[in-house]
Each structure stands twice: as structure tokens, then as C-alpha cells.
């Protein structure tokens, strides 16, 4: 593992597989009644969130706590200083406090890269602007592997606002690294100029792609995209790109439906699809904690086994 996890491309096949294997161990721990490990005792993990994201922050917080790390939630939103000043100054403050890892969510693409230049600890990108969200891609890959038994060769269709999606960027990159075959589907307005350089197929036609999909991942579409004329209105978007029961019927029998949340039920995904047996949406949340435990462990814990003997684990874990 590199020192930081800023982009899915910081991982190669070997290290990404190591994260997934480690997450598997972590997930088994989550099935125990006592879920805590002593691995990161005495280490400090800072959640530095410049954007509201209760889901992601909570997931990282739980992951760090299950590894017995000290967790500080540093919400920089609403700070009176300019964003720029607070990023540098906050970085120096965290440095002075001895943060071992900084988990950063920021509305500006590349902000975690800048942070990594100013702090000695590890930086984990928890979503930066319209750039990347590598732990989301890892938890998605983990979910696919658990459901379908493999990643290599899977045909993964990602549908929605690819242009603005950090989830899509990280997923396309990681799926390619892991030997899967991603296809992105969107109206042309929501695909970036320059996408031809991405390691993915591109389609405007969801119905043509679904029969050839082992995984279909639906992305949230925000209302503000409509006001900026990326598409005429939500109804037309839903008709052309939404995943409803009729479209699900075109999927291969064992194909799964994913969504990184939060969902717009009735827009990009019908409620009956979100709640169906194919849906992995709730698992993704649980898997997020396991994957983030694995990432923090591998960045901070070094080469020791993640889980010692069960006895040691439970002894340490029983502290309140």
C-alpha cells in the first residue's frame, strides 16, 4: 500500500485484492457479538469533513472505532475563514495534534492531494468534488465479490451523472484494475468530454446494455442538473435512464443492482427495484465499514495480522 489513498489508481491489483481480503476478515469480525479489535489502539484518526456527509463520516468513524483508534470529527463546514486558508491551517493543526490518518471529504477536486502535501500522516480521500471516492469503489467491488464470487470478467454497468460523479470515476478505475469490464451509461450531456481515455465502454442506451450486465450500478441524479439543462426534466430522465421493474427483467438472472446512496426513489431507481432481492444497497452500507476498517488497518497497522488470535481479540474488545 502507498501511504495515502487519494485515488483508485493508488492501488494495483495486488494491493486492491489485499484490501478486499482484509475487509473479508473484518466483515467476519462484524458478525461477532463483540466487534472491536485493539489493532489501532493509541492511533489517532481525524475525520476532516468540509462537506456534510453523515453516511460516509459515520462509516469511517465506526471503522476506526472498531479498530480501537481515537477518532476526532473535525467538521470544517461553516468556518468563517476562507476554504483555502482553513485547509492549510487545519492541516497544520492536525499535524501538530499528531493525527496518524486524516480522512478528508471536500467539495474541491484534488483537495486531499493538497492535504497530503502538508501532513505527515496518511490521507484517505473520502470524496473530493467531482474527482474520486476510492473507498466507495472498494466497497462496491467488495460487494460484487461477495455476491457474485469474483470481480474479474464481470460486466458492470454504471448509469447516471457520470460527469459529476466521483463514485463513477473511482469505480471505473478500480474495476479496470481488478479485471472487470465497466460500461458507463448516461445522456451525452452527463458524460465528460475526454471520456474516451477512460478504461470503459460508453453507451447512451441503457436498454441495449442491461442484458449484458452482471452488475448495474445506479447513480443519484440531482435536481440541479435539470435546471442546468443537462436533461429536460426528471420524468424524461427517469423514462430514459431510470431502472424500473421492466428494465430489471432484461437483466441476466443473477445480476445485482447497486446504488451508492442516497437514492432518489422513483427517479433513477424504482422503489420496488431498490427493495428487491437483487438489490445490494443495504449490504453496501455494512460492507463500507468493513472496507474502511481494512483501509485504515493497512495504511496504519503495518504488516501485523489484522486479527490476532480470537482470544486476544475478544479480551481487548471487551472494554466498554
Amino acid at each position, binding site marked *: 500500500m502507498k501511504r495515502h489513498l487519494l485515488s483508485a489508481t493508488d492501488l494495483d491489483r495486488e494491493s486492491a485484492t489485499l484490501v478486499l481480503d482484509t475487509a473479508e476478515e473484518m466483515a467476519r469480525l462484524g458478525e461477532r457479538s463483540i466487534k472491536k479489535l485493539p489493532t489501532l489502539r493509541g492511533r489517532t484518526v481525524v475525520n476532516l469533513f468540509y462537506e456534510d456527509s453523515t453516511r460516509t463520516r459515520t462509516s469511517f468513524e465506526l471503522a476506526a472505532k472498531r479498530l480501537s483508534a481515537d477518532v476526532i470529527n473535525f467538521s470544517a463546514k461553516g468556518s468563517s475563514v476562507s476554504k*483555502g486558508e482553513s485547509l492549510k491551517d487545519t492541516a497544520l493543526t492536525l499535524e501538530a495534534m499528531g493525527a496518524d490518518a486524516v480522512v478528508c471529504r471536500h467539495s474541491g477536486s484534488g483537495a486531499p492531494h493538497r492535504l497530503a502535501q502538508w501532513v505527515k500522516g496518511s490521507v484517505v480521500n473520502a470524496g473530493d468534488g467531482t474527482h474520486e471516492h476510492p473507498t466507495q469503489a472498494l466497497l462496491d467491488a467488495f460487494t460484487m465479490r461477495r455476491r457474485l464470487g469474483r470481480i474479474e470478467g464481470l460486466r458492470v454497468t454504471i448509469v447516471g451523472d457520470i460527469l459529476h460523479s466521483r463514485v463513477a470515476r473511482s469505480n471505473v478505475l478500480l474495476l479496470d484494475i481488478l479485471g472487470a469490464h465497466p460500461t458507463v451509461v448516461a445522456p451525452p450531456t452527463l458524460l465528460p468530454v475526454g471520456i474516451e481515455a477512460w478504461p470503459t465502454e460508453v453507451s447512451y442506451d441503457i436498454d441495449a446494455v442491461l442484458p449484458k450486465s452482471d452488475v448495474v450500478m445506479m447513480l443519484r441524479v440531482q435536481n440541479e442538473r435539470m435546471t442546468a439543462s443537462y436533461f429536460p426534466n426528471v420524468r424524461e430522465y427517469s423514462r430514459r435512464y431510470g431502472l424500473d421493474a421492466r428494465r430489471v427483467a432484461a437483466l441476466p438472472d443473477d445480476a445485482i443492482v447497486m446504488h451508492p446512496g442516497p437514492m432518489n426513489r422513483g427517479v433513477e431507481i424504482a422503489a420496488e427495484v431498490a427493495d428487491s432481492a437483487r438489490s445490494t444497497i443495504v449490504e453496501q452500507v455494512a460492507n463500507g465499514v468493513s472496507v474502511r476498517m481494512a483501509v485504515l488497518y493497512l495504511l496504519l497497522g503495518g504488516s501485523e495480522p489484522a486479527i490476532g488470535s480470537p482470544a486476544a481479540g475478544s479480551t481487548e474488545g471487551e472494554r466498554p
Partner: protein
Amino acid sequence: MTDWLLRQVRPLGGDVVDIRIVGGVIAEIGPSLPEGDCSVYEGGSSLVALPGLVDLHTHLREPGREDAETVETGTRAAALGGYTAVHAMANTTPVADVAGVVEQVWRLGRDAGWCDVAPVGAVTVGLGGEHLAELGAMAESIARVRVFSDDGKCVSDPVLMRRALEYVKAFDGVIAQHAQDPRLTEGAQMNEGVVSARLGLAGWPAVAEEAIIARDCLLAAHVGSRLHVCHLSTAGSVEIIRAAKAKGWDVTAEVTPHHLVLTEDLAATYDPTYKVNPPLRTAADVEALRDALADGTIDVVATDHAPHPVEDKETDWTAAAFGMTGLETALGIVAETMVATGRLDWAGVADRMSIAAARIGRLADHGRPIAVGEPANLTLIDPDAAWTVDRAQLASRSTNTPYAGRSLPARVVATFLRGRPTVLDGKPA
């Protein structure tokens, strides 16, 4: 006033001669002139003498952002870069949109004494793009404004642009357009293409520049006015300018040093040192710009020297300010990209960095031939003195140079402003 004898220099890179400066004017040129009462500057037969460089596009930041640059610090940097005149852009606080502000900037320049400061007047009140500023008053002021620009913002309203182009004909003015369609570049952070798609930074498409340039060329032709296009950055823009010139339209264009050498790939560092407007483009664009500068499609190199304080750059990319400094490195970059590559000789450099710029800006005393009777605005360059750019050694108050650590092949060793040295041996005189 001290008279000078410049010994053994090569005007425009030609034959070695001595140049005598008396009373601020070139008095005598010839081999082995007698010393007389002059102070002597020894060129040693290697120095190239050029007419003092003229920058059409400088941000001196005063009044308003004296933490970034002042007229004093900016013009000293200019002198060190070989400039004897700079055009100070209007986007100050307050905006240079009335005679009072341009006269203030002009006076600050004269008092500092490092080089002539030709203030640029805003086209519209407050750079607001709605109402014409008092262009005539600025033209008639002591600052004698001839170049008008809303630089940093585009005069995007076609009617307003037409009126401005027409109006300045009365005093031989020129509209220098920052060509950027505002709607096509909302939130834009870098060139739109493969790299922006990967980095997740909002794209600044080439068409947003090219569409405005095409429109403005047509407007200028229609009303018979003079148009200058600031900082061309794309191959497509070059094609449009080339076509406009082929039709005989009175259109000129500039390119910055950074667009001659840096490319969009640098954005992958997320280091806002490389964030600039217009953005760094592709290697193919760089190549087209070099070709266009060589063949004269692009008339001048203009620095777009844009100083910013550290805190406006030491931040994340999207929050950071656009712009990079350039006065002290422009000549070196041109030497690297144009002279060392055989695309321009020193006479060509003199044209693109002095003569053409003075002509566009209507500066009578600058960009003149190196000839007896001409004002002694001169720059001496050592074409073989490679140097490494060191942030701490630059004179600009701001340190946002993209060239720190870069070796440049040539350096300015002396600058004379009307016969008075502002720089000697590469240091402020």
C-alpha cells in the same frame, strides 16, 4: 545625466558595435568608439542589444491589492525582465475605469522610475460588462490611454463590444479582449479534455475562447475597428486570427510565455501554481502557438504577469486564484521556446517583445530601431547565460512563478530607460 558607452554589443544579434548614449538618446553607433566622458558598460561581444521590451499585459495590482504587487515592485520586476514599458491592466480596486485612476497609476509608475507604465483603461464601468466607461476621458488624460480591456472578464455582450470597438476609433484606441464566453466557462478550472475528465475539474473548453474571437473579428471588420486579442491559448484561435489577417482585418493577438511552454498535464499535481486563465492547454496547442508566433500570426508575447499572495495559491485548486507571474522569466522562456528552437532570431524577438507591442499600444518612444537619434530604451541580453529560476530571488512581491527550479537559457543583464540604467549586471541599478 550620465552618458553611457555600451561597448561591444550586438544590436538584434548582429555585428558587434559600440553604442553611445547622450542625454537619453542614442548618439553614435560604430566599432570602437572613443570613451569620452561616458560611463562604460562592457558587453564583451556576446551581449545582444534589443529595443527595451514592452509588455502589453501586466497586472500591477495597485491600487487595491498591494499585498500581491505594487507599481514599484512590479515595475522593478519588469525592468529586471528587460522591460522599459508595461501596460498595467485595469482590474484594480478601484477599477481603472475613470481618468483619476489611470492618472494615479501612471504617476506611480513615473515616480517609481523603473519603466514606463501605460495604464490600460477598463472598457466597461467596474468591469461590469454593462455600460461603457469614460474611454475618451482616459484617452485624453495625462496617462494617454490607448489600450482598453476588461481583462479577467470578457466583454461578452456583442452590442457593447461593437460600440466599444467603434467608439475608440476617435482616439486611435484598441479594445484588448479577454476572449472567454462566460456561460461556457461557468465554474471552469482547467482545459476541457482528457485530463479534466480524469481529474474531475470543470472544463474550460477551447470553443469558449474561439467563439468570442471569431465574433470579435467579424465585429471589428464590420465596423472597421482595431481589435487586439489577449492571451491566445488554442490552435483553433490561431486559425481564426490567421483567417482574419488574411482578409486584411485590423486584428492583432498576443500569447503568454506560459502558453508557449506549459501544458494541461501539470494540473494533475493539483498545485494551483499551474491554475491560470485561459488555462494551460495541450501540447498540440503549444506547438500551434509557437508556429503562429514564428510566422507572425501572433504579433506579440505578453506576460499576463498575475501576482497573487501565497494564501491565494497555497490552497486547494478550486479555491485558488487564477494566474502566474511572468515579467522576470518571459525573455528566458522565449529564448528557450523560440530562439533555441530556431523559430525566431533576435530580430524576431525584438519584434514580438517590443516593436509590435509598442505599435499596438501606440507608445511612440518604445519599440524603436536601435539607431542614432532614437530614445535609448535598450535591453542587453546574455544569450548564453543559463540561470535557474529561484522564487526567493525574484523581485515581484508575489512568488507564484510556475518556473521555480527551471533552467532558462538566456538572461537580461542590463536595461536602459531613456539612457538611464534601471538594471546593470542583472541587478537593479
